[in-house]
């Protein structure tokens, strides 16, 4: 089933997430996991900061010459016997994939984890057309069975507990012995592996995403920790790579530089367990590999970001460091963001891809604490870009009228020091009167969003400026 975006309902989604004790437990585990491991491996690599600059420069260079690199890439894929398909938008991309599946006579399609596939709605598209789609990434497999969208771009089922996974498997897997334990991670992976093995062999088509598309060789590179990508792409007769344009990188050497950052930033590993390079269909001397190799290059809004203040976002390598370290993501999880990309990177990418109208909340839902930028391996100026979206929505008149009026009133006085000083004195006096010198207010009109959860500390008395003018240096 297709999952329609619910980004417009971010506050309601967030409320529900905060009230969900199971989710809250899962988010607590996430916070104690990846950031700690990341800090350890980053500390072990003295050139990490230098590598961030190198990686940023590589991507900036690639984006500046993206048209040229895409053409070089295409020529090299064709040279090794593959096919390149250009898709301007989600619909074209899905149609292209489906057409290849039809041509291959596919009934079963295995699929590795791919965020761009989520973005273009490929899963629902294939399901609706009768394809038996099997997700081979464990997390994706779990949420496929539960008919849920991913809540994280690296660990899509991070919101699901082990107990829930056990229940899901019992409901979905016929003939599963009810006495069989499914409480440990090992049991869960064994059970999933057993189910998936035969699908790998049955599948006519295997679909993967790509972490990098390498121009000089026409290669695509994916990283996984489960090895499911290798099985998906080598065992099926047809391998389809679905990748967005900005996955392009000039050389293998460039890719290796960025790979040194990817796993460290993401899961806190030095390197992912599997880094798999595919170069086209099986050659006569190869032991295995697909008979046909297709790459579907998806634009879906990327070229519109080039040359704009949003271009920096195209450097993103989907490592998830930003969301792993984000206190807002950590409080509400990924589903609250309402679309494929959650957390800080989603707060920038979602408005760029689906429009700011349906996602106006996301760039506002940040305290600008800056932790995302601090850990972003590609040095994407996330808060600056969120602020840019805030400016756009302010210009378009979005945002509550009370908030706008309050801010307008504040700005009016703050621009007029002669009016501001007496107003500040009056405000201080009024707040103190209201609190009857108790130090805090339990309730304050026009500030109920504050006093719902917090007391409002009242002023000490007077303003600094008036006391200073009187000369009462204390």
């Amino acid at each position, binding site marked *: 089933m297709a999952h329609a975006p619910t980004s417009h309902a971010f*506050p309601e989604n967030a409320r529900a997430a905060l009230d969900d004790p199971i989710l809250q437990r899962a988010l607590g585990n996430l916070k104690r996991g990846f950031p700690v491991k990341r800090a350890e491996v980053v500390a072990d690599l003295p050139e990490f900061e230098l590598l961030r600059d190198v990686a940023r420069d590589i991507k900036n260079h690639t984006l500046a010459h993206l048209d040229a690199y895409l053409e070089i890439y295409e020529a090299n894929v064709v040279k090794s016997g593959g096919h390149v398909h250009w898709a301007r938008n989600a619909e074209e991309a899905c149609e292209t994939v489906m057409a290849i599946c039809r041509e291959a006579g596919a009934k079963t399609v295995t699929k590795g984890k791919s965020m761009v596939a989520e973005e273009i709605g490929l899963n629902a598209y294939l399901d609706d057309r009768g394809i038996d789609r099997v997700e081979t990434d464990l997390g994706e497999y779990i949420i496929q069975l539960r008919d849920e969208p991913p809540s994280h771009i690296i660990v899509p089922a991070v919101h699901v507990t082990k107990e829930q996974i056990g229940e899901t498997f019992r409901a979905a897997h016929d003939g599963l012995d009810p006495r069989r334990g499914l409480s440990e991670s090992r049991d869960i992976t064994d059970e999933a592996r057993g189910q998936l093995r035969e699908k790998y062999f049955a599948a006519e088509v295997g679909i993967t995403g790509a972490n990098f598309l390498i121009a000089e060789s026409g290669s695509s590179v994916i990283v996984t920790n489960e090895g499911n990508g290798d099985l998906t792409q080598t065992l099926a007769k047809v391998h389809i790579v679905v990748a967005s344009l900005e996955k392009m990188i000039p050389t293998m050497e460039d890719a290796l530089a960025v790979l040194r950052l990817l796993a460290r930033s993401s899961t806190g590993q030095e390197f992912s367990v599997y880094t798999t390079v595919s170069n086209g269909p099986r050659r006569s001397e190869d032991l295995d590999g697909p008979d046909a190799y297709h790459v579907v290059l998806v634009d879906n809004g990327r070229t519109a970001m080039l040359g704009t203040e949003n271009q920096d976002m195209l450097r993103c390598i989907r490592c998830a460091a930003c969301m792993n370290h984000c206190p*807002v993501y950590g409080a509400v999880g990924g589903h609250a963001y309402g679309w494929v990309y959650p957390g800080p990177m989603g707060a920038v990418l979602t408005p760029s891809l689906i429009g700011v109208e349906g996602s106006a909340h996301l760039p506002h*839902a940040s305290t600008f604490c800056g932790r995302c930028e601090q850990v972003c391996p590609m040095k994407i100026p996330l808060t600056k870009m969120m602020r840019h979206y805030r400016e756009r929505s302010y210009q378009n008149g979005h945002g509550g009228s009370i*908030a706008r009026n309050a801010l307008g009133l504040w700005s009016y006085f703050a621009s007029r*020091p002669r009016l501001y000083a007496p107003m500040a004195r009056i405000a201080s006096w009024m707040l103190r009167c209201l609190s009857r010198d108790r130090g*805090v207010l*339990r309730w304050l009109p026009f500030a109920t969003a*504050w006093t719902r*959860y917090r007391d409002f500390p009242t002023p000490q008395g007077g303003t600094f400026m008036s006391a200073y003018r009187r000369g009462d240096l204390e």
Partner: protein
Amino acid sequence: MSANDPSGSRKPPIKVGLFVTCLVDLFRPSVGFAAIKLLESAGCVVEVPEAQTCCGQPAFNSGDRRSARSIARGFLDAFEGCDYVVAPSGSCAAMLSRHLPKLFDDDPALQHRARHLAARSHELTSFLVDILGFSGISARFAGAVAYHDSCSGLRDLGVKSQPRSMLSKVEGLELKELQEAETCCGFGGTFCVKYPDISNAMADKKLSDIESSGVSTVLAGDLGCLLNMAGKASREGSSIEFRHVAEILAGDGSRPAIGRTR
């Protein structure tokens, strides 16, 4: 005494414009007086420009660039002629030093002035330690204390060791580290009223971290964060007290803590 003691130096004293910040002006004047005491003890001549109001950060972060610009324009006039601009707040200092010039992209003359001001603007404790090499005045405060790193000061300005090194010299003060000293308290300016549920969840986690650290007082360099944490602690009936770091460094730790009357 300070390394920059004017009596020991032939250079004219450093003229510092104190930007007291709108929150200190309204909620906690004692922080402004503490800042003056510290700056003067470090050998500075402190001026408090009368025409100051706010740095414009609420408007800037809400996307209201025009208001931010108009407030910033007034700020440039108010602080013209000071050698340095110093604020007892990391986020206001970061607004001045990192963002102000961007507001005048289309006006080279104003942008030049904004850049000049940005280069001279500092957060209080980092100014004292990094620029003046000042190690503090004799101060006393009894109790176990934690310092919360406010986000802008920490990440935009690198304020981390400076307040701690000064606090380590305060007599009777036992400095402890929070497990999550660098995690946002959930204030975030207008964020705390735009997304109160999430802000509250973050404040709640912050308070739990504080409670489990065994301190009786939490210090920070930003009044916004302090009001948020103190307000949350008060609502939850916690006995933890919240104070601005400048007050403790200036030996002014006996007045009622934020949101307290005794």
